[in-house]
C-alpha cells in the first residue's frame, strides 16, 4: 500500500537515572513529535516525574530490566495507539538530534522501508573521540560480517521502525547487546532498511553515561551465544 497519509510517529525513550537531562530532552523531542513515550527502567531518581512533567507519557518498570527490555516495553506502549505508523527509538542522554529523527521518519515514509537506522559515520564525526571511533568501526565490521547487512554504524540508538516491524520486534538480550540483536532480527526477517546520516552530540554527560569500551567483549560473547542458539 502506498503511504498516502502523513506518517504519525511515536518516540520511545528508554531511560535509567537520567534526571539531570531528561526534562530538556523530552521538551526538545516534543518540539518535533506529538507523541513521546518514556520508559523508566527502574530509576532511583525522579526521572519519571520529570519526563511526565515535560509532556511525555511515562511507563515505569517496577524493577530494572535493561535497555533492550525498556525499548520493547516502549514499543508496545506506543503501538496501543492504532494511529501510530512509526516508532522512533531515541536515547535519553541528549546525544541525538530531533531534526535527524524527523528526517529519518520522512525517509521511512517516502521510501516505505521497515527500518531506518541512524549512522553517525555517514554524518559529521568530528566530535567523535578517536578511541570510540576505532571501537565503533570494529563493531560495525563485526556486525556487517555476521548479519550480512550493508551498514556503516552498528550501535546507534536512533532508529525508526515501521509499525509492522515494531510489532514483530522482540528484544531479549540484556545489557547493551540488544543493538546487535536488532540488527540480527532485521537480517533474519529480511526487513527492508536504510541508513540515514545522523550527528551525535558527545557531551561530557553522554560520555559519562556511555558504555565502557571493554563491554564490547561482553556484547561479542552474548551475540555469539545468541546466534548459535538461533542456528541450532
Amino acid at each position, binding site marked *: 500500500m502506498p503511504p498516502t497519509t502523513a506518517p504519525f510517529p511515536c518516540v520511545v525513550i528508554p531511560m535509567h537515572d537520567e534526571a539531570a537531562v531528561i526534562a530538556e530532552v523530552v521538551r526538545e523531542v516534543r518540539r518535533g513529535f506529538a507523541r513521546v513515550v518514556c520508559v523508566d527502567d527502574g530509576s532511583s531518581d525522579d526521572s519519571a516525574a520529570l519526563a511526565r512533567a515535560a509532556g511525555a507519557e511515562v511507563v*515505569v518498570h517496577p524493577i530494572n530490566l535493561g535497555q533492550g527490555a525498556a525499548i520493547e516495553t516502549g514499543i508496545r506502549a506506543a503501538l496501543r495507539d492504532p494511529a501510530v505508523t512509526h516508532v522512533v527509538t531515541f536515547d535519553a542522554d541528549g546525544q541525538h538530534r530531533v531534526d535527524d529523527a524527523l528526517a529519518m521518519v520522512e525517509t521511512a515514509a517516502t521510501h516505505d522501508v521497515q527500518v531506518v537506522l541512524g549512522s553517525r559515520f555517514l554524518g559529521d564525526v568530528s566530535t567523535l573521540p578517536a578511541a570510540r571511533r576505532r571501537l565503533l568501526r570494529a563493531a560495525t565490521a563485526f556486525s556487517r560480517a555476521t548479519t550480512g547487512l550493508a551498514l556503516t554504524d552498528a550501535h546507534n540508538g536512533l532508529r525508526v521502525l515501521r509499525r509492522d516491524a515494531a510489532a514483530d520486534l522482540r528484544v531479549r538480550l*540484556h545489557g547493551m547487546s540488544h543493538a546487535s540483536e536488532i540488527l540480527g532480527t532485521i537480517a533474519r526477517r529480511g526487513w527492508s532498511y536504510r541508513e540515514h546520516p545522523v550527528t551525535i552530540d558527545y557531551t561530557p554527560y553522554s560520555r559519562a553515561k556511555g558504555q565502557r569500551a571493554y563491554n564490547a567483549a561482553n556484547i561479542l560473547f552474548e551475540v555469539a*551465544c545468541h546466534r548459535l542458539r538461533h542456528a541450532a
Partner: protein
Amino acid sequence: MSVLPAVLTPATALLDGAAIKVLLVLSLAGAAALLVRGRPTALSLLLRRALTLAVVALGVVAVLLPDTVTDVAQLLGVGRGADLLLYVLCVTFLFVTIGLYLRLGQLHDRQVELARRHALLEAEVARLRGDDA
C-alpha cells in the same frame, strides 16, 4: 608402563587410558551442546531425573564398597578411584552449572514479561484516571 612416558609416541600417548578420555570428551561435547541448544523437553527432564537417581545409587555403592570405585577406575584406564571421582565431580558440576544458567535465563525472560505487563497496566490505569479527572 607409564614409568617411561618419553618413549611413548604421541599416538600411543593419546590411546593411554582411552576409555576415560572418550567418556570425558563426550561429556564435554554434551555440555557444549546443552549450552547451545538446551531447551526444556520431557526427554531432558527424564535424563536429569535418571542421572540423579543413578548418582545417588552409585554413591551408596561407592560408600559401602569403596574398592569397587578403584576397580571401575582401573577398568576405565584411570589410576585411582579418587581420580575417577574427581572427573565425575567436574563433569557433573559443569552440567549442573549450565542447567542452572539456562534456567536463570528462562526465569529472567518470564520476569521481564511480567514486569512489562505490570508497567503497561499501571500506565493504562494512570491514563484512564487522568482522563476521568
